């Protein structure tokens, strides 16, 4: 309760500061709309449904792209951790491509797929997959070999050993890897939505882009706030249960009382 109160107070203070800056009159309201006019914009966008629709479009793309990215990245990461051949091939490719900012995929995606849903998905997947590969690889390599030895003596081999020992043992790394992949997916998607104008659905990135085109600063700031909130909520929904499980089982992340 106290923590919520502190957080609320903190954000209220920021809003108050913002209002003070507007009231000082030093900046044109075109460039710095007041918190009130911003809330008015958000409220009207909420009422006419455009905000919810854009959020739904964005979240759908994000989850589709992210899920595909993880589904490709996770097994690839396990492969590169287990075999020298895959480490030297896919592993080094992942290392290289991970350093490529995902915005750099956009020109290629546009030329390959045109202004389509596939282009957006492609950028999100490319943004996600390599960091998931690397995190999974690191995770599977870092687990103490004694776990695998103990499991082998009890008769665990092959597929059983992968699913019951190696994957759960590297879970702390997998979750942080998936979290990192998630952060990349979210950034890639916003970059893609701002640059790729497609007709199959307006996402939050598009609203942001049009806010700029129309010089509608209240829209720009409002949508940025929504993007932050969506990112926070998705992060909590996706990872909080896993992190709680990890902390409970592994005894990590305990705060001193």
């Amino acid at each position: 309760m106290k923590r919520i109160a502190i957080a609320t107070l903190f954000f209220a203070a920021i809003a108050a500061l913002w209002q003070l800056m507007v009231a000082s009159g030093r900046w044109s309201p075109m460039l710095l709309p007041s918190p009130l006019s911003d809330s008015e914009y958000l409220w009207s966008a909420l009422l006419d449904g455009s905000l919810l629709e854009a959020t739904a479009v964005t979240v759908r793309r994000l989850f589709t792209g992210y899920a595909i990215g993880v589904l490709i990245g996770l097994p690839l990461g396990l492969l590169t951790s287990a075999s020298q051949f895959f480490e030297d091939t896919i592993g080094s490719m992942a290392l290289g491509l991970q350093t490529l900012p995902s915005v750099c995929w956009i020109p290629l995606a546009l030329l390959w797929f045109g202004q389509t849903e596939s282009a957006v998905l492609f950028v999100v997947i490319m943004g996600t997959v390599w960091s998931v590969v690397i995190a999974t690889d690191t995770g599977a390599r870092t687990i103490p070999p004694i776990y695998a030895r103990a499991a082998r003596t009890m008769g665990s081999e092959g597929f059983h050993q992968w699913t019951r020992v190696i994957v759960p043992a590297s879970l702390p790394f997998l979750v942080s890897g998936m979290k990192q992949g998630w952060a990349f997916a979210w950034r890639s998607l916003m970059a893609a939505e701002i640059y790729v104008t497609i007709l199959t659905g307006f996402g939050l990135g598009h609203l942001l882009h049009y806010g700029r085109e129309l010089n509608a600063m209240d829209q720009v700031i409002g949508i940025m706030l929504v993007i932050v909130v969506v990112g926070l909520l998705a992060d909590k929904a996706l990872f909080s249960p896993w992190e709680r499980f990890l902390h409970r089982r592994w005894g990590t992340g305990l705060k001193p009382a």
Partner: protein
Amino acid sequence: MGPSGCGKTTLLDIIAGLTKPDRGRVLADGQLVEGPGRQRLVMFQESALFPWLTVLGNVMFGLKLRDDLTDVERRRIAHEHLQLVGLEKFAHANVHELSGGMKQRIALARALAPDPRVLLMDEPLASLDALTREQLYADIQRIWASRHKTIILVTHNVREAVCLGDRIILLTGSPGRIREEFHIPLPRPRDINSSALSKHAARITGALKGYIGGEVGE
């Protein structure tokens, strides 16, 4: 027993089937050992308990790999073994919540539960404090008396060997060879601090000193 680096752990690994011997072969009940098998379970120096499972989940791990049991039987056996090591109350605890001694007890329960023919112990008590270790000497002897498993224990500690072992085989280092064998005819349960035990321990320490020139491993 033997000095560090004489191949005690390697030998245990070969018996377990975790390491392939360069030459020779291991027979268990007349069967060639070609890989790990649940007739020869290992208890390691660190507990090697799986942190992603609860205590009960750890004890169930080996049982789940036995197809001849039903789930109800597995559960019953797991609880029996937790009782055997005196940690029934901790069935649903997480591994990180246990002390070092408790972890080794759970590791013992996990190794015993699938009912192996042989239990291989690789310095299982080396990382524990003296008090906990003495408690576990008593526990291991009690459990051995009730289950009558063949136990092969690797240790650096002469008194520990005399307390737990019926036969003590001294190995020498590079190349690893059997040097000498001792029989310990003391009645059980044995107290690690008893004078009869000290006498045997002194004899073995003497033998160790004799052939490695005072460089004893403990």
